[in-house]
């Protein structure tokens, strides 16, 4: 993952944003599970930092809200991340 690029685009939320993307690569998930995954990958992360990163990713169109099978709000990677034109560097640097 391009840590230096993510820090430029996301400030102190860069690491958390990256791990959110890694977590969502396995499929849509709710914020609580996302928090578990990010904590597993990145250590102690609080909900304030999680939602700060989520807001930035959403703003840049890198993730999008969806309703899961229980009609509960969740997040997934946006279409930008799928197909042959995947370029996370472009996405993170925007």
């Amino acid at each position, binding site marked *: 993952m391009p840590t230096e690029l993510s820090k430029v685009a996301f400030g102190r*939320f860069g690491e958390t944003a990256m791990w959110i993307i890694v977590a969502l690569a396995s499929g849509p998930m*709710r*914020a*609580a599970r996302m*928090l*578990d995954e990010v904590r597993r990958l990145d250590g*102690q992360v*609080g*909900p*304030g*930092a*999680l*939602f*700060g990163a*989520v*807001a*930035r990713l959403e*703003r840049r169109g890198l993730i999008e809200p969806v309703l899961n099978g229980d009609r*509960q*709000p969740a997040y997934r990677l946006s279409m930008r991340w799928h197909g042959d034109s995947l370029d996370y560097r472009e996405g993170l640097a925007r």
Partner: protein
Amino acid sequence: MSRLLRLYPAAWRERYEAEFIGTLQARPVGPTGSVDIVNGAIDAHLHPELIGGAPHAWTHRLPGLIATAAGLIWSWYYLRIVLAAPEDWGYGVFIAMLLMLFAVLGDYMAPYARQIGLTIAVLLAATALAGIQPLSVIGDGMLNFALGAVAALLLSGGMLTLAAVRAGIGAGVRWLLIVGGLLVPVTVAIFVMGGFGPTDPGGAPAMVVAILPYGIAWAIIGLRMTLRGSMTIHDAPTTEQISEAAAA
């Protein structure tokens, strides 16, 4: 813990609050988590563009920074009187008052022009009457003192109210700040200085009880104003404001 979410901007809460509360219920956090939430709230205020708001120009932070500085200078000035008991009192209070005046001037005042005008008129009238010497025969000068006190309370209370309005503080908390930062301390001080309390009448402790909370209230309002951002007089309206005005 979810009470801390009130620190976030309204637009942010509208978008994320329900999910945030759900996350907190599923994964409760401790004291460290509280710090994280407060940090997140500060970040949300500093970056309104994340939830569709217009980004703040650095000038939008100026009134809040000035108000915070005024509150801190005011508080330091009166603490210094007690802690260091200086011979000279310096110009701290004048600098603080000047900064308070700069902090409240802005476009947001326009809808309150009538109330502000009325307050200034009463303030000037009370000040003028307080200076009339023949009135001092009434109650051995107590009438002059009372008029002066009314003018001082109107000035300090009015300024604090304007700052709170500019900081986007609701009426309930606004009153709390005025009562806690001004009315109660001044009442206590008058009680003490009147010789009813244990403190040396007229001494520095009484003055600090009366005046220090006012500085603290200004610092709190200033911090809120800084985080929220506020248009300054010379700022051009944002695109959103123009759209809102056109829609209205």
